[in-house]
């Protein structure tokens, strides 16, 4: 069963038959968490690096921003029995338009913010498919923990 994660949304599951999937990552970034022992999986599709951009929106939808979404994702996974030491974290997205200078580097800003937040939580990124100018779909298959990324028109790649 596909559990679709929308833009600025997150989902966690213990359902062994589920696939967490998110479509159309442009400059947004998808983050998956998988604990192979507890068989817990989670996915976040955040849009922007910092909740200071719009604090009201962050209260309404914390998953829109990296700094509010990532801790929430980790916490929700923990509630289902996942443990930090076992968490496998993979990420995809963070694209930008061509010739981007600082003005349009939102994908890059998302990536930098995410790495910092994960580092603060003592978590290493185990696989990534980021940057460039293409659109991506990301999925986490339970219970194997397989994470794949589909790049529009470029086939599927395992992370």
């Amino acid at each position: 069963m596909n559990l679709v994660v929308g833009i600025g949304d997150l989902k966690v599951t213990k359902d062994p038959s589920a696939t967490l999937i998110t479509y159309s990552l442009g400059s947004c970034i998808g983050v998956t968490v998988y604990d192979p022992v507890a068989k817990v999986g989670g996915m976040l599709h955040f849009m922007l690096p910092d909740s200071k951009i719009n604090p009201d929106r962050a209260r309404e939808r914390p998953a829109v921003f990296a700094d509010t979404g990532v801790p929430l994702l980790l916490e929700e996974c923990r509630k289902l029995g996942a443990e930090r030491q076992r968490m496998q974290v993979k990420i995809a997205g963070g694209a930008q338009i061509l010739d981007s200078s600082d003005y349009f580097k939102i994908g890059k800003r998302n990536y930098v913010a995410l790495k910092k937040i994960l580092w603060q939580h003592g978590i290493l990124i185990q696989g990534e498919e980021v940057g460039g100018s293409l659109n991506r779909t990301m999925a986490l298959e339970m219970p194997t923990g397989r994470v794949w990324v589909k790049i529009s028109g470029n086939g599927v790649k395992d992370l």
Partner: protein
Amino acid sequence: MKKMTEIVKAIDRLPPFPQVAMKVMELVKDEDVSFGDLARVIELDQSMTANLLKVCNSPFFGLRRKVSSVREALVYLGQKYFMEVIWEMASANYFQEGQRGYDLDRGELWRHAVASALAARILEERLGREEDPLLFTTALLHDIGKVVLSEFVAEALGEIRQRVAEGASFLEAEEEVLGVDHAALGAMIAEQWAFPEEMVKAIRFHHRPEEDPEGLTPLIYLADTVSLQMGIGTGLDGLQYRAKDEVLRRFGLTDHDLMEVMAELGGRLEEAEALISLN
């Protein structure tokens, strides 16, 4: 350029643009227009009338009393919102089907159209500009060229991607391989539909805002870029379009402003869900 002739001919397969929508836009420009005059124009079109009542009575508006006439709809929506809804109804059909050349599923390009129109409004508000009805309608239709070009892109995809790999933008590659890009083709369609000159121009240059710095184009460019980055209706062309910093600089906007627009757009899209699932 046999291909190009064939592509231009394919425009004729599009159903003509609903005349009522054009008429409403003309009437709304006149400040003294009466609700009665506006209502009469819509009433001439039965399916438009039926759709309008359906939209007004949808749970989105949460009305306690049923709207049963065009006049009531107008009183309820107000002139500006009325025109937006009419244009959304007139445009939705063209975008609904998927565009396989761009790897877009059913409804995705329509979502992109509505998101861009909402983003254009947010930008307009931020810049403290007076509301321009043309801005909304142009943003809604800026990618109409993709609807026709899609099947030709599908046929020539290998070659187009080769050009992109060599450093062209997707737009440049379309033009190099097919003789026309989706923006130029969109402008031809807009011309055939007798859209106002400003609209035609902004559709033509929506990836090259430097060609029309004073018109609607720069805001359409930004609105489009914002929704593309958010992945709304972003196809296999992805973000392979060129960044134009000078547009932001001219408006005195920064990347921070763009991020604020994106955050706000997310919320407005949720509110507009009922309009997106129109038809």
